């Protein structure tokens, strides 16, 4: 009696194809995710002169990354778990990790799209242009920062079964990150909170993206922020993957 398993590459392509199609068919939510950083970017036209392009661009990219990880990815996971999509895929002869990796690949594409859109709007509306190296480094920083928020989204969706609870939690965390993150970094909420925000998931990602936009500003503080970002990502991802609840029961 012989049984040959399906080729991993064939299964991966099939999963990727369907996940990209699903993302495309849900493009209204994709547009909404991209819209927030674009609106902030356009409305902050006056801030560029005061705070500098790296500050504005890094905030917009960080907010977009937060939206992708918290609003997009985690809710899509919770929604498909609720529908039983994962249950059906898990009874197929493919490893569970392949199912999640395919989902993550789609989000990585979203990160590229977000970064490109922010840079394009910044160029068109605010006439901000960077060196080729800075564009590349920013993309890498966006990937690293995006991994943190995808890890956080994975953790929230993984540890809670109910899709409504996941939705409510991610909205709350998203709101707190944006409000406390942006205003805290500006020092509007006090010096103590400014320090906390600086080393929070919001602050560390913003720091590395800001330094990537202007590589000459890369400092020891940025390197520490990079390490902390990687640390956060690993902890969130490990918790979210290890204790991921595949079904709602």
């Amino acid at each position, binding site marked *: 009696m012989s049984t*040959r*398993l*399906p080729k991993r590459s064939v299964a991966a392509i099939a*999963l990727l194809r369907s996940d990209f199609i*699903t993302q495309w068919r849900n493009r209204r939510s994709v547009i909404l995710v991209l819209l927030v950083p674009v609106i902030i970017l356009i409305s902050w036209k006056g801030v560029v002169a005061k705070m500098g392009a790296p500050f504005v661009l890094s905030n917009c990219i960080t907010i977009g990354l937060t939206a992708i990880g918290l609003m997009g990815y985690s809710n899509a996971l919770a929604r498909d778990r609720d529908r039983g999509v994962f249950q059906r895929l898990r*009874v197929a002869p*493919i490893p569970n990790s392949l199912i999640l990796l395919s989902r993550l690949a789609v989000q990585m594409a979203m990160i590229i799209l977000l970064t490109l859109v922010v840079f394009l709007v910044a160029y068109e509306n605010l006439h901000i242009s960077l060196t080729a190296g800075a564009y590349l480094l920013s993309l890498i920083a966006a990937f690293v920062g995006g991994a943190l928020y995808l890890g956080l989204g994975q953790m929230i969706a993984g540890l809670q079964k109910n899709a409504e609870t996941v939705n409510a939690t991610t909205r709350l965390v998203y709101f707190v990150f944006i409000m406390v993150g942006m205003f805290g970094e500006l020092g509007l909420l006090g010096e103590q909170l400014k320090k906390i925000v600086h080393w929070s998931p919001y602050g560390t990602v913003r720091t590395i993206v800001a330094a990537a936009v202007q590589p000459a500003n890369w400092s020891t503080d940025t390197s520490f922020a990079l390490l902390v970002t990687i640390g956060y990502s690993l902890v969130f991802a490990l918790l979210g993957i290890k204790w991921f609840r595949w*079904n709602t029961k």
Partner: protein
Amino acid sequence: MEIATGETQYTVSEDIAGIVLSVQNLKVTYGNFIAVQDVSFSVHGGEIFGLLGPNGAGKTSTLSAIEGLLKAAQGNIFIAGFDTKEKPLHAKANIGVQLQATSFQPELTVDEVLQLYAGVYGVSLSKENRARLLYDIKLENAATKRFGQLSGGQQQRVSLAIATMHQPQLVLLDEPTTGLDPQSRRQLWKRIEEMRNRNHAILLTTHSMEEAEAVCDRIAIIDHGRIIAIDAPEAIIEKHRNDPEVISASRKGKITLEDVFIGLTGTAIRS
């Protein structure tokens, strides 16, 4: 139907008497709650085996353990000779599954769903093969329809076609007729019988005693996580026809499988 396969091919056992599924002393727990205890049975190629029981009796937990969705606390499960603990992917490659709720991405079209599962099962399905498959389930005009736009019966047909597209030795059907109209139900049973004729082993759960009696070769009645009767439907009826509980459950004079089921599991409504 003949499906063109690529490098990954699966063969259905020719040995009708051969055991395709063997469940041995299965125990499934949810925290401190024991959902399934000491359950053992086997299903042969070319056999329809029904798992019957009241709500919460342990049917779906047993099925989930076989599918690899739940980890058994104790016991062993062998599918087509593969131990599900040691070779879970090989075991899964030999199962076709129709879950209780149809569970494909509603954003995908029927054709895209077929392509996805052809990929994850390693089946090479050309456009013509997919069209033929849809023609077989009378959905030839639905290829470009979103899965979420299909009726319940149409979704069940797609689900069953996907469950068997890789010619698995074992087909698991969890309450396959729930929510179907009589026409769709009849058609589904016809398809299940065709699968039996092609030597698939079929394990299904159902609440319909009439259907179980008419279609299943053997049944197991499970209650409170334990198997309380296992045999051919007529043999079970024969064995219990004189039980006082069965006689008092009988309403039509003639003892049916439902009477035996009620007699054995009681009249109390389960959660």
